[in-house]
């Protein structure tokens, strides 16, 4: 046995545990198909609401329906990817409360990988599918002046957005070491963040936009780079032009911050006991 490499080990453990859950899910194929489809419908309703809004107006915050669909598709797909990969982490609070986290601590695999792969739910693919469908519609319906750079930015945004949302999930999980019962707070940032990004930044108050651009940089999932792709000015004047290409940097920064938070959280863990 060579030296211990946490990342390789973690990915291996993740693959094994997730694979086990996928096999177990696919045992009940009909149930899987129904819940995946149900998930698609549930998340699709957000978009139906947007379509209903556009049945009454032509633009929202200056954005047309295909442009809002572009934002929506990017936000929903990257959130879906993060939710699929690591969404199980939001159940950590329950494990902390009932003490079953101890089981994960004694296993010879990184805890984060185990927590993320725990009850890996393949049905969450419904959300990714729904987001991709809307994104596909947006790409067809909008008249973007495509350049090679812009074309490359679309998959780039999905990957970086997925990484940023994953960081939010991990930070949320770390928060649950401290908060336990208050796990719902993280929904304000995960589901809330996803909903926020589905609408144009021009809709929201300047302070809110500034907050999610500079303090809690969710805006780099889609708002900032998408403004470049759509050829629209970003509603915050002070942002330099190269900011549109910053998502990879922001994603790395977010993941590093989340990793630190996770370590701090895990170190502070004290098992329940009698």
């Amino acid at each position, binding site marked *: 046995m060579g030296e211990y490499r946490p990342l390789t080990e973690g990915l291996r453990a993740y693959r094994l545990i997730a694979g086990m859950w996928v096999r177990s899910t696919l045992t009940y194929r009909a*149930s899987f198909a*129904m*819940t995946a489809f*149900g*998930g698609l*419908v*549930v998340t699709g*309703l*957000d978009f*139906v*609401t947007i379509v*209903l*809004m556009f*049945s*009454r*107006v*032509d*633009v*929202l*915050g200056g954005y047309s329906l295909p442009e809002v669909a572009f934002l929506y598709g990017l936000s929903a797909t990257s959130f879906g990817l993060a939710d699929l990969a690591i969404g199980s982490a939001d159940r950590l609070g329950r494990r902390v409360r009932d003490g079953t986290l101890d089981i994960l601590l004694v296993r010879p695999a990184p805890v984060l990988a185990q927590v993320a792969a725990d009850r890996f739910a393949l049905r969450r693919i419904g959300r990714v599918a729904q987001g991709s469908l809307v994104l596909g519609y947006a790409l067809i319906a909008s008249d973007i002046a495509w350049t090679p750079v812009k074309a490359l930015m679309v998959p780039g945004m999905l990957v970086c957005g997925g990484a940023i949302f994953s960081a939010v999930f991990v930070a949320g999980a770390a928060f649950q070491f401290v*908060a*336990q*019962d*208050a*796990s*719902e*707070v993280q*929904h*304000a940032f995960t589901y*809330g963040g996803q*909903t*926020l990004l589905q*609408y144009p930044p*021009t*809709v*929201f*108050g300047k302070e*809110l936009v500034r907050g999610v651009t500079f303090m809690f940089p969710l805006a780099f999932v889609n708002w900032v780079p998408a403004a470049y792709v759509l050829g629209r000015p970003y509603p915050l004047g002070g942002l330099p032009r190269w900011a549109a290409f910053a998502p990879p940097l922001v994603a790395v920064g977010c993941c590093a911050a989340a990793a630190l938070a996770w370590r701090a959280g895990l170190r502070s863990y004290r098992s329940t006991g009698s």
Partner: protein
Amino acid sequence: MGAGRLYAAVATGGFRRYATYRAATAAGVFTNTAFGLILVYTYLALWEEKPHLGGYDQAQAVTFVWLGQALYATLAIQGGGFEVEFMERIRTGEVAIDLYRPVDLQGWWLANDLGRALFQLLGRGVVPFAFGALVFETALPDDVGTWSAFLVSVALAMVVSFGIRYLVALTGFWLIDGTGALQALMVTGIFCSGMTLPLNAFPGTLGEIVRALPWAAQVQVPADVLMGTAAPLPSFLFQGAWAVVLLAAGRLLQTAAARRVVVQGG
């Protein structure tokens, strides 16, 4: 022990059970406020573009958002009330014990859920609503009569919400696994209650249909009673009629379901 006192005790139990989790309640308040903020801005943009959409002005649209957030947990619009526990009892067969008790099953859960709803209204509803009313321009009445009518309407909404979820929970007798039914409850709850868009802003025939469904009794009707955009008496009648229909349907379905229960073992 009189029936009234019994149900009061069950309701108090439901209230106190939820009151125990203070951190969870605070977290819920925070989350509802955050979602309210996001929705308010989208509505403001929508009403900016189309003033008087659905007969509301901007202040009324804002009021609608915060009312929806305040009633979200109270009316268990996405689920999350008694039905989760009840369905688990149906799945495990523990419901057989419940059926044996000298208490009415539907009445028991209704009392339990009303206790929960009352706590959620006070614990999770008041703060986001007050925040919204302080920070944004809202359309709130200043006479006691309208506020009392609003409270009556909220109480009726609680019963309608229970009626819907009781029917969903009873499907557990046939389906065993409740995932799909709860998912359907979530979809209809969010969409048909007006949580994402006020029902009077829905276009054409779709609007007419959703406004006649029982979910309209949940957020739309109390909102209209509060803002004076609907007369109280017809609103109560609409809510009351759905409450009676749903409870009666629940009663019928329960009778059919109870005949299916087979207690294992000897």
